[in-house]
């Protein structure tokens, strides 16, 4: 249980590392494998090299021991000092090795003594420290321990042999030794030699066994280390790549979902590495996107709400205007009818009782009420023009203008006015409204040319600043350009009512109509030079 949780914690910590660190970790594992193998190999070589050195040392040791036996035996027979000296030289080798061994057995050996000992043991100078180290490192290994035990026992036998050698030397140099004693000593030495031979072989075998053990141990260690490290490295690599793939596919799937409009989707964050950070950033981005979408929606709703409110206000205002016009149309006309009707009745029934002034007053009364009726008429038209819907249709302006001109000429047949109407003028717009506009413009021209004996009125088309512009031109009374901006205001009149009758609403109506078609209208003129009204629809 605790191993599992430790494993999980480890896994979590591993996955939370950044991607380069993960990759470096896997690389490090493999570097470790190689390092471990190199280390084990090196260590193994050290061991083998040590074993070799000891086997070599043992050879020298054995050879010297045999020589010592040989020279001692020879000395026993020849009694020559030279032979004894040869013996001493030979026996120095095992003694040197013994000195090194005894020093190495100490807890803190003096390596100068050790090296001196091994040098006396005729070992190669380069092998000295290898042998010392082998001894220190592997003393605890059973095989090596046994070899050391054998070596110690051999040294004991060597000591016994030296004792015999010294006895022989003393006896021969003093001449106080019997031949029987010499034979007994030689027999002892032979026995010792035989026992030493056994130990020497045993030492070699033991070292051989140690080398074989070391070989097996090293091979197993290398195998185990390689297997463990490769397994760990492979596990980590696989886990990281699998995790990374899962994470990336979750990220890309999430990105696809979000791009398809699922702004509620959040990609699960499973690590703290770069992909994890990217996921967190992506989720944050999605959240911001959703928030801004929501805000846009809210603003839109508010805007729509405001539009609805404004529209309602507008509609209410329109309704009010409509109600106002309706009531004007009904309630203002009735009294006018009364005024005119009773004036007429007065004239009819009591006309003979009135003098000329009375008749004149009655005429003024009737003229006033008629003018008032015209104003009401024009106001209602203006209001209607403002309220009514604009129906789009093909409108033949030339035909409309000709009809209006014919009507004007029919009502005042005595006037001499020349109409010039360009053919084929047509546009898209509301036929009824455009007709009202043309009626007002042509009617104005008709009215303001009335003081001239001859007049001409023109309706045509021209280009103005790249646009098609229609115009109505006359050679009548014209107007002062200083007041051009006042022309289109309701009730604004540039001429006195005595000169030209009118209500001052006609051009305001024209402007309203043109504006409702998305166009504009303007006038040019000069006093007594005529006027031209241009409009674009």
């Amino acid at each position: 249980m605790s191993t599992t949780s430790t494993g999980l914690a480890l896994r979590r910590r591993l996955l939370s590392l950044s991607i380069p660190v993960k990759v470096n970790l896997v690389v490090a594992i493999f570097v470790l494998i190689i390092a471990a193998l190199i280390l084990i190999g090196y260590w193994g070589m050290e061991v083998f090299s040590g074993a070799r050195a000891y086997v070599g040392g043992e050879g020298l040791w054995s050879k010297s021991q045999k020589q010592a036996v040989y020279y001692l035996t020879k000395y026993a027979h020849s009694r020559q000092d030279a032979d004894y000296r040869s013996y001493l030289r030979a026996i120095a080798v095992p003694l040197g090795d013994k000195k090194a061994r005894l020093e190495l057995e100490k807890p803190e050996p003096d390596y100068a003594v050790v090296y001196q000992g091994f040098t006396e043991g005729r070992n190669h100078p380069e092998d000295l420290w290898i042998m010392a180290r082998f001894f220190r490192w592997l003393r605890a290994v059973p095989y090596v321990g046994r070899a050391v035990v054998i070596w110690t026992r051999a040294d004991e036998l060597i000591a016994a042999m030296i004792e015999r050698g010294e006895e022989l030397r003393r006896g021969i140099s003093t001449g106080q030794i019997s031949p029987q004693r010499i034979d007994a000593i030689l027999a002892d030495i032979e026995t010792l030699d035989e026992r030493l031979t056994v130990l020497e072989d045993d030492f070699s075998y033991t070292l051989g066994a140690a080398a074989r053990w070391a070989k097996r141990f090293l091979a197993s260690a290398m195998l185990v280390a390689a297997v463990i490290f490769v397994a760990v490295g492979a596990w980590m690599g696989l886990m990281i790549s699998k995790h990374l793939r899962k994470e990336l596919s979750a990220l890309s799937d999430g990105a696809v979902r979000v791009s398809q409009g699922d702004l509620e989707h959040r990609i699960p964050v499973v690590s703290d590495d770069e992909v994890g950070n990217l996921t967190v950033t992506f989720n944050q981005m999605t959240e911001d996107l959703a928030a801004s979408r929501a805000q846009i929606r809210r603003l839109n709703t508010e805007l729509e709400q405001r539009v609805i409110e404004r529209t309602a206000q507008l509609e209410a205002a329109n309704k009010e205007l409509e109600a106002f016009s309706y009531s004007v149309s009904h309630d203002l006309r009735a009294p006018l009818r009364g005024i005119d009707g009773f004036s007429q009745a007065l004239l009819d029934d009591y006309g003979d009782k009135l003098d000329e002034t009375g008749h004149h007053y009655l005429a003024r009364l009737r003229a006033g009420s008629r003018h008032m009726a015209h104003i009401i008429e024009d106001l209602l038209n203006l209001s209607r023009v403002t309220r009514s819907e604009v129906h789009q249709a093909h409108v033949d302006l030339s035909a409309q203008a000709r009809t209006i001109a014919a009507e004007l000429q029919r009502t005042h047949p005595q006037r001499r006015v020349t109409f010039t109407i360009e053919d084929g003028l047509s546009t898209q717009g509301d036929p009824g409204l455009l007709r009202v506009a043309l009626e007002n413009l042509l009617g104005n021209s008709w009215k303001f040319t009335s003081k001239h004996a001859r007049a001409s009125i023109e309706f045509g088309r021209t280009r103005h600043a790249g646009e098609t512009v229609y115009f109505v031109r006359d050679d009548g009374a014209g107007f002062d350009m200083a007041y051009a901006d006042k022309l289109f205001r309701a009730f604004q009149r540039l001429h006195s009512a005595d000169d030209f009758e009118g209500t001052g609403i006609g051009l305001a109506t024209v402007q309203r109509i043109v504006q409702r078609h998305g166009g504009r209208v303007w006038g040019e003129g000069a006093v007594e030079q005529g006027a031209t009204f241009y409009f674009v629809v």
Partner: protein
Amino acid sequence: MEAPFVLLVEDNADDVMLMLRIFARTGLPGDDRVVVTRDGVEALDFLFPAGADHGRAARPLPRVIFLDLKMPRLDGLEVLRRVRADPRTRLVPVVMLTSSDEERDVTQSYQLGANSYIRKPEDSTQFSETVGALGRYWFHLNQVVPGPIQA
């Protein structure tokens, strides 16, 4: 059989007086032959007296109804609707006589079954001509439904 008469539904006393004067001067139909009611409620009370036997007209029907649009209590369009809804008055000619020339009023009146729609001119001369012509047309020229109207 009672003498034929006109029902004039008009709240404006001036208009009533002027119209009666025009009728008198043109000899059509006489002063005594015009029943004047001052609003829609009065008109309906005249046409359908309370307590009258249902199913038959309580009194002779007018040859024509001259009906104003805008009146207190009950307007002309509502009167027209009731007149057309009732089987006894369904076929009585109704002429809308009003100051309004609003498209809406004209359309609605015809939709509700008005026989004619006349705008009262403000000009007294034209007004005289209009009212005189109306009287002549509806009182003399126009053929009425023969006999009592069956429910």
